[in-house]
């Protein structure tokens, strides 16, 4: 099936069949990661530029491994400052990068919408590797792939997302993706960590974890940034952990086959207790492994603009 897009900017604008194609492609590419020689020539001669304006270890490494396993040449540009702060205009940055003739830009930026703004200015493909509080599409795709592997389906599942929804691009991408694929999404957070007009999203909302944990097939625990306390959104991390931290005691109410996901990096003892993070329900390391497969699929589909044929 053809994959028509130049860019992957978010999950919100994807159709369910496109998500299906990405997940199926990732599934078929996963096998490469089990081989003794983990490399195929698919993207030989293609150039992937990783443009990370925000610190990231996991996502950048995952994209870099994905590109290298497909034999692409990769370059990384990391900076903690924006083009503006450096005194270079945004336009100059794009023009300079464009002149390098890349096939794909993988962009992480602290300002929402920046991958969109770059995508409109370049003929190269742009993959959003996380922008501000907006979207983190590859994370949602790897989450969906992980859930689908463990549960055999997405449709009809109850997925509970717990934590700092307001500031989370992971939550936004997952809300769009999971609901498009037929799952039911429940958000659980204190009101100060929910976004404005949360009713406008296709979700149910609760402020009480104990009330909603029992129905969940999947619990997605979000990272709580420690700054939130200083911003007056929480009285203390301690109280947050008491009411919203996922620990063994709260899990007593959960289903026997519940899955625990976390996009990392974790604050153990705040949003998730160590015994839950490392316990039998946790699929956190599967998520990381699936991340490479999903990112290989995205690079493949955007460069070739079609799903792989039967040779796998």
């Amino acid at each position: 099936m053809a994959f028509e897009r130049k860019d992957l900017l978010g999950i919100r604008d994807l159709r369910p069949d496109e998500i299906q194609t990405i997940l199926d492609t990732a599934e078929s590419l996963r096998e490469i990661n089990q081989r003794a020689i983990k490399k195929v020539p698919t993207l030989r001669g293609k150039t992937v530029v990783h443009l990370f304006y925000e610190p990231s270890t996991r996502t950048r490494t995952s994209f870099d491994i994905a590109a290298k396993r497909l034999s692409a040449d990769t370059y990384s540009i990391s900076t903690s400052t924006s083009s503006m702060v450096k005194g270079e205009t945004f336009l100059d940055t794009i023009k300079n990068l464009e002149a390098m003739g890349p096939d794909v830009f993988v962009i992480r930026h602290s300002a929402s919408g920046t991958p969109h703004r770059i995508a409109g200015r370049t003929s190269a493909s742009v993959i959003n590797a996380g922008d501000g509080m907006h979207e983190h599409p590859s994370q949602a795709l790897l989450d969906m792939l992980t859930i689908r592997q463990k549960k055999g389906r997405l449709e009809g599942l109850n997925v509970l997302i717990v934590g700092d929804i307001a500031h989370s691009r992971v939550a936004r991408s997952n809300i769009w993706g999971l609901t498009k694929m037929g799952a039911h999404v429940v958000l659980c957070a204190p009101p100060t960590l929910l976004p404005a007009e949360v009713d406008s999203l296709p979700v149910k909302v609760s402020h009480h974890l104990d009330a909603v944990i029992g129905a969940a097939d999947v619990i997605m625990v979000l990272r709580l940034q420690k700054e939130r306390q200083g911003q007056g959104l929480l009285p203390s991390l301690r109280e947050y952990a008491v009411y919203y931290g996922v620990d063994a005691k709260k899990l007593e109410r959960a289903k026997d086959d519940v899955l625990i996901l976390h996009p990392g990096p974790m604050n153990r003892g705040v949003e998730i207790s160590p015994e839950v993070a490392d316990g039998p329900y946790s699929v956190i390391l599967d998520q990381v492994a699936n991340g490479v497969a999903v990112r290989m699929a995205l690079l493949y589909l955007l460069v070739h603009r079609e799903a792989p044929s039967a040779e796998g």
Partner: protein
Amino acid sequence: MILRSARILDPERGLDTVGDVVIRDGTLEAVGSPGLSPEEAEGLEVIDAGGKWVVPALVDMHVHLREPGEEYKETIETGTAAAVAGGYGALACMPNTRPVNDSAAVTEFIRRRAREQGHCRVYPVGAISKGLEGKELAEFGELREAGAVAVSDDGRPVMDSLLMRRAMEYAQAFDLVVISHAEDLQLARGGLMNEGAVSTRLGLRGIPAAAEAVMVARDLLLAELTGGALHIAHVSTEASVRLIREAKSRGVRVTCETAPHYFTLTDASLEGFDTVFKVNPPLRSRRDLEAVREGLADGTIDAVATDHAPHSVLEKDTEFEYAANGMIGLESALPLVLQLIRDGIGGPLEILAKVTCNPARILGIPMGSLRAGTPAHLTLIDPEEETVIDVDKFRSKARNCPFAGWRVKGRALLTIVDGVVRYSL
């Protein structure tokens, strides 16, 4: 000059008639006369204005001219050139220049530059506080004597309620209206757009409507306390309209303005992260837009101003988060104002009043009317002509117009200020 067979609209007098307008030696000699005899008309240029409207030259009470200090964005020369091309004959310029217009010296500079290089009348607005810092009052008396017509810290609110009270008290000694930029900075903190469903989808930090309305409420109470004249700038929310309507019904000395973008655009425009739509106050919800239009219809909102805020690509062509707030409006406002008439918000006289006599009255300036025997300030409008807004043809130095490419109806054909043709299509 004779403008023959025009529809003459003078909102100040409620005049709506068809006739001739005669300008001789820069003065309006006759307005709506049955016509001059051939001998009387001899030597005068005759313009057939059949089907066209003659209105008082428009008054924009809220403009950023950027000079002194940011001449790369706009100058008094280019800003006033844009004004007359948009049908404006007078504008009030906000004090957030560099240096800030908080002194007679800066006010005098602006007036002198406007006399030497300007294409229309320029009325400076002085600062409420020295340096717009919100700490100490600027010298209102000297500002007034130098030619300032109002005071405002526009671009910033006066967060200190006591300072705002003192401003409204002290301004009365010099008959100055205090223009409030109503925004609670704590509630708005870090916000990039209107808070609501769209900001949630886009992951952009929101500015709640209450950040504006809270300060509108405060300033209305201070106006009541002090008896000072208060004008609320760029009203954008339903709650602000409601609060002002209620205050007016109790006789509080308050007037207010909105801008074309608040009655034409909503925050849905932000989808796509185009920084041309980034403005403060931010584009609001559909519900706020409807409330603003109701406020225009029932007279709660007295004036339409552009809040013309020129920026260069340096400020706008960047990440959304770092882009400057503001949009230009002088060359796109008129057709959007005329659209209000077609939309049934008000008749031609009621709507035109909001860009002529009402802002002139609020500022106390001798503009916004078509009385025989006064200096001729008028605009000839074709209310029906369809055009596409082409920013590349703008006289303004800036291009940050959110209506670029829009197909609109109505344009200025001729703008006369102080009896001189300042713009002719």
